[in-house]
């Protein structure tokens, strides 16, 4: 046989004729030309590819196979070449050969969606449930949002997602049962963190981090609700709940001194606060505001102020401490948000709590109970709602993050003074 290189002009002419014929719908002529090319040059790459795909679409798997095999023999450097081969083997029900082709494809591109789906389905067919689940999970992880997936692949991607989800669910149910007896050994221990780690592992819960909007202090643990036992100074404050509530009710009767909780000027982004900005639906009666005693308000609540002195409140001139009665009107929701800095925690002492109120920090949703305080990290996403037709009232105040050492607290106070001095008293950040 003559060297194909010397017959390139002839090949090119045949190829041009084939393309023209195919475009004009003269399929037989096109195929005749392509076959002729392969007689001259059995390794003509484009022709092998186009004929292989035509055979495949026409259901002639043995012919498609010989074309696609030749392609990977000549080249084999592109994942798609192996994918074509794998799909052909699948249709021929040659599982071992399909597996090899899939492995070759994924070795070239480990994130190839079709390759991962083929692998998952093959493993499922072989009864290798757990490996199949991992492959479905990998396919679900690399797949773009459904509307961006090629229509022919959508059903497969949806199946991969459902499969991965179901597997996680089954695994979670198995672990729950398995761990039951182990958990029993530790009766009386606080195993909340561990339980949550399992929920996150099997996808039942999301993970939340501390996201300070302004000032982040490193190395602190992102704990949504702290253990009440860590704060013995809350005892006298809780014991004074009735007195505090009475002072609040007197204030409420006069309807004086309340201001909207959110008061952003019009020319800054409002984000999630658009609805509650300057709204009486969520209002506050401030005792300490931006680090300053609100003298006329504090004077109306002497017992509350006395009890508040037990709390280790932060000292950031112009920013903290903060303390206020927070009043949430009926059917009002405070949208999910994160606070400005994790150097302080926030304490709630519930005073008036109708049915249908809830509070969520991270994964933990709780109900306020009058007289029972809690301490939480407001740099972890949190939200609140009053689903009742009555008002909800909570005494809110901030405290130093208990894991900060005294020198660290002193430095944070100094830092705030430095910021104030640098900006000449203009507010550098809200807190």
């Amino acid at each position, binding site marked *: 046989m003559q060297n194909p290189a010397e017959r390139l002009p002839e090949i090119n002419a045949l190829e041009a004729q084939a393309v023209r014929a195919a475009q004009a719908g003269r399929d037989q002529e096109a195929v005749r030309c392509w076959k002729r090319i392969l007689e001259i040059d059995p390794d003509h790459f484009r022709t092998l590819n186009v004929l292989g795909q035509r055979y495949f679409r026409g259901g002639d798997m043995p012919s498609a196979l010989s074309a696609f095999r030749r392609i990977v023999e000549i080249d084999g450097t592109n994942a798609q070449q192996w994918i074509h081969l794998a799909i052909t083997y699948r249709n021929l029900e040659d599982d071992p050969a399909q597996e090899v082709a899939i*492995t070759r494809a*994924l*070795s070239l591109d*480990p*994130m190839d969606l079709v390759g991962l789906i083929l692998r998952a389905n093959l493993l499922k067919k072989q009864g290798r449930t*757990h*490996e199949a689940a991992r492959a479905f999970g*990998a396919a679900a992880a690399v797949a773009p949002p459904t509307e961006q997936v090629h229509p022919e692949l959508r059903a497969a991607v949806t199946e991969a997602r459902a499969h991965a989800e179901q597997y996680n669910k089954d*695994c979670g149910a*198995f*672990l729950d049962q*398995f*761990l039951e007896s*182990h*958990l029993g*050994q*530790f009766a009386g*221990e606080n*195993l909340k*963190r*561990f339980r*949550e*780690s*399992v929920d*996150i*592992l099997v996808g039942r819960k999301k*993970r*939340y*981090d*501390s996201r300070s909007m302004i*000032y*982040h*202090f*490193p*190395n*602190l*643990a*992102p*704990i*949504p609700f702290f253990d009440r036992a860590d704060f013995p100074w809350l005892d006298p404050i809780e014991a004074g709940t009735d007195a505090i509530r009475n002072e609040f009710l007197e204030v409420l009767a006069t309807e004086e001194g309340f201001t909207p909780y959110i008061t952003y000027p019009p020319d800054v982004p409002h984000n999630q606060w658009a609805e509650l900005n300057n709204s009486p639906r969520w209002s506050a009666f401030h005792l300490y505001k931006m680090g300053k005693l609100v003298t006329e308000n504090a004077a109306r609540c002497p017992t509350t102020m006395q009890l508040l002195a037990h709390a280790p409140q932060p000292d950031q001139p112009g920013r903290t401490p903060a303390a206020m009665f927070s009043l949430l009107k009926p059917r009002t929701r405070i949208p999910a948000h994160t606070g400005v800095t994790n150097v302080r925690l926030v304490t709630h002492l519930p005073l008036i709590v109708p049915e249908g109120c809830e509070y969520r920090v991270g994964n933990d949703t709780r109900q306020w109970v009058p007289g029972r305080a809690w301490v939480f990290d407001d740099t972890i996403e949190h939200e609140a709602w009053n689903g009742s037709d009555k008002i909800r009232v909570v005494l809110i105040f901030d405290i130093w993050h208990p*894991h900060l*050492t005294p*020198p*660290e607290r*002193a*430095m*944070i106070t*100094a*830092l705030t*003074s*430095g*910021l104030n*001095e*640098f*900006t000449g008293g*203009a507010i*550098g950040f809200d807190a």
Partner: protein
Amino acid sequence: MPPIDPRVLAQAGADALRRGDARLARESFETIAKAGIADASSWLGLAFACRGLGDKAAALAAVDRSLSLEPRNLRALILKADHLAESGDARGASSFYQFALQAAPPAGQLPADLRSELGRAQAMCARYAGQFEDFLRERLVGNGLVEGRTAARFRHSLDIMLGKRKIHFQEPHTYYFPELPQIQFYDSSDFSWVSGVEAATADIRAELLEVMKEDSAFTPYVQGDPRRPRKEQSGMQDNPDWSAFYLWKNGEPVTANAARCPKTLAAMAGVPLARVANRSPSVLFSLLRPGARIPPHTGLVNTRLICHLPLIVPPNCGLRVGNETRTPVEGRVWMFDDTMEHEAWNGSDRTRVILLFEIWRPELTEAERRLVTSMFEAIDTYSGQKPAWEI
């Protein structure tokens, strides 16, 4: 009065500005403004004209009108910033310069003069940041900020606030245990067993040197697994640049290797190694060839810490964990959270070797450790196979 053609007037104003005739430019743009038909660029033209005439108040008013119509116009943002800078409002100026830099498209898509204006904005931002930092540090030193352990976290917080360090979070690939502090390097003085291990450095190194006499003792650290997709450890798979000699691997002793290093294993006796079937402990010599770099990556689970005892450390070796970079020192143990993004390098022309092992995270209670162990065993029972595990 004849009707105003704003296009003609705007063109006249722009031409006048180019010629440096601020007076005529102001007249043209003001005519448009008075007719109530000024767009963002007419207001901006007026602002430049007023600025040229030294009428700062009018310039500010005009640029504000322009920005209210087109809040991301780069020239308007920079003009506003310049105005604030001249009036001594460094913070305000800085925020507008910064916003202009953020709003700017890639430099290649900008005309040359705007590119140089943005360069100026960048320089101004850097200057303000430097002033701010100097000021704060001076004040804080006056307030007792000293180097040393008590201030370490605080200095770290300061760097984050000043934008000099990024916040890193734990990013385990397979298992996240919540509510743990996000610490990059732990303080080795908090661990009582460290001194015992450090005291054994010479013995451990002697055993290592014996092992290293055999060329084939070490195997690539990242091994290809035909059952798994290729790792994303760019170029490290099956690469002898980063290789290991295991004494324990994924919870099993490597008997032949362990027999060659009795003193090393003895030194591990006091270490709270995690014991989890098919996973932990692993104890190994980790070898990094000259010039090799382990690319940034994150580990599998945050219930353990990785400990290094550096044994052979040429110059120019380092480890970055999150936003902190340290240089290994022979015989000094450190421990870090490998679920924080980390990378290591050997920039020398000699081999670097460390002893690597893992311990339970100190914050986990005994009950939590036992449950984590049970859970991993349950996962293996459920899947009926050994996990793809790595240290």
